[in-house]
């Protein structure tokens, strides 16, 4: 028994050596943090004796962190914000990306289409810090382009960074601006893969362009649409930290509409110092997120086995 294990180990020695660096990385950056989630059940103190000492010697508090988290308004508001924003992103992102892909596929001049695509791709490559500066050049109270335009039309300046009402729209717009160009490529690729003879037949039968889109393009896109959407649903409990932290410039007056689970956890670590409660919020996110990924992957498997994550 031990001997056969040893033989098999020996035979796979080189391969094991190849996965070793990666496996060590996973151990430190993925699996040990899993152990660290114990902090959610502790009153965590950073001890100078290091990780294990802090983990073992911090006071046990059972479920108190979770109880406290869910007794505050914060738990409700960050969950609501995270979910609502992500739902808006998924629905609008899908509609616009598919529409844009169809539109690009219909353009007569392929060179122009390529040029447009090059432009639309740009925002995807920029960091949220840069995008935050872009937004500021529009939204700045005394210098921004928007207030300048408002004044030009005889309207009052707005205090954009202090007005929570407008931020749901701004964040959705900025998200769409940054992501649609990229995601439309996926749909464009599958539109170009559709058998041309289907359209020829439809045209001979006298189908209009709209009818072709409705009866050929969209049905052919259905599998990829379903899969992309389900994969996004699996991540619905995770927010894009950069969008919600950089673009509103961490403005306190906007927290009611910009605070999501990820920013809440970060502020717990860096600003308020509520390590235990923030770890609890993070664990809550991981657990619900895990369930959602498993469920959506199960559904993807039912729809199209090849597209499932695992």
């Amino acid at each position, binding site marked *: 028994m031990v001997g056969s294990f040893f033989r098999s180990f020996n035979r796979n020695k080189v*391969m094991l050596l190849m996965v070793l660096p990666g496996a060590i990385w996973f151990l*430190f950056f*993925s699996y040990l943090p899993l152990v660290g989630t114990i902090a959610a059940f502790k009153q965590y103190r*950073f001890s100078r004796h290091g990780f294990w000492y802090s983990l073992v010697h911090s006071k046990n508090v059972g479920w108190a962190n979770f109880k406290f988290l869910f007794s505050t308004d914060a738990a409700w508001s960050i969950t609501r914000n995270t979910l609502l924003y992500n739902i808006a992103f998924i629905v609008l992102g899908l509609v616009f990306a598919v529409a844009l892909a169809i539109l690009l596929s219909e353009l007569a001049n392929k060179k122009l289409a390529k040029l447009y695509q090059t432009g639309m791709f740009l925002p995807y490559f920029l960091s*949220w810090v840069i995008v935050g500066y872009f937004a500021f050049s529009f939204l700045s109270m005394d210098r921004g382009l928007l207030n300048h335009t408002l004044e030009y039309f005889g309207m009052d300046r707005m205090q954009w960074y202090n007005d929570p009402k407008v931020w749901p729209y701004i964040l959705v717009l900025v998200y769409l601006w940054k992501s649609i160009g990229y995601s439309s490529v996926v749909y464009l690729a599958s539109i170009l893969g559709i058998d041309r003879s289907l359209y020829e037949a439809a045209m001979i039968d006298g189908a209009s*362009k709209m009818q072709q889109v409705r009866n050929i393009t969209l049905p052919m896109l259905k599998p990829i649409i379903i899969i992309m959407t389900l994969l996004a649903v699996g991540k619905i409990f995770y927010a894009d930290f950069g969008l919600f932290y950089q673009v509103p410039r961490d403005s306190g007056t906007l927290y009611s509409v910009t605070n999501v689970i990820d920013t809440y956890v970060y502020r717990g670590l860096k600003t308020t110092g509520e390590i235990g409660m923030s770890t609890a919020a993070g664990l809550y996110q991981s657990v619900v997120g895990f369930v959602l990924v498993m469920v959506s992957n199960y559904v993807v498997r039912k729809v199209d086995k090849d597209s499932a994550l695992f």
Partner: protein
Amino acid sequence: MPNVMKKKRNFHQASPGWNIVFNLIAGIFAFLCVFPFVFVVIISFTEEKTLATDGYRIIPKAWSLDAYQYIFKTGDTLLRSYGVTILVTVIGTVVSLLLISLYAYAVSRRSFAYRRFFSLFAIFTMLFSGGMIPTYIVVTQLLGLKDSIWALILPLALNAFYIMILRTFYITGIPDAIIESGKIDGAGEFRIFSTIVLPLSLPGLATIGLFSTLGYWNDWFNALLYIDDPNKVPLQAMLMRIESSMQFIQQNSANGSISLEVLQSMPQDTARMAMVVLATVPIIFAYPFFQRYFVQGLTVGGVKE
């Protein structure tokens, strides 16, 4: 027979009228995607004084190179941050390509007895993570990487998703027969990997390499968590720091607790926008590569067992 001519045109095209409408919509959206960057470039070339009265304008009253001159004269911070970012990006990309390609190759080989275990070992990390704070605790307390350059490199070095992409690439792109023939010729596994597999998988490696280059270049999050030392702040994080210290000054300048001197030593609006431009220019240059390989990476698709 004009009718036949008309029938002959590409069936995948709209009528001329719609074509113009579609061109307009796509063109406007493409323009809106690029415009903010152009606008920031314009601001960086604006005369600073006109900003106070006019604000940011698409066509400024007076142009100036002052912002760039200011940066190159007092550019220590920017230069250092550039250095940090380049160092981190280069080392990071090399390290991550090495880790990812070795791991992906091993789990792609059918002769590797533990390939299922190590595949799952990687995939599980995509499904369940400890989260930000436990990771922070491990990196600072266990690995002691606070204020170390490695805190910018290691957290981004590996990613199960890239491993799965590259594994698919190896399985579909490199026939077993080639590897077997290498074995018959007496080459060891590492030799087969470096002389047969790596050259054949260059397109896949390029895709992953560009993903990770972009990830390192644009990273500010790890600096936000782990770096306090001003000498080790990468480009994006430096831009972020300037922004928040400006906000701090603006909030406190009203009650006079900040001296005029501090106020004047901060980079002006135009200079900050010039830094944004300088941080973005390398991406614009690398753009053709990015676009090509990102599309390719997207369509590599199939991440499955």
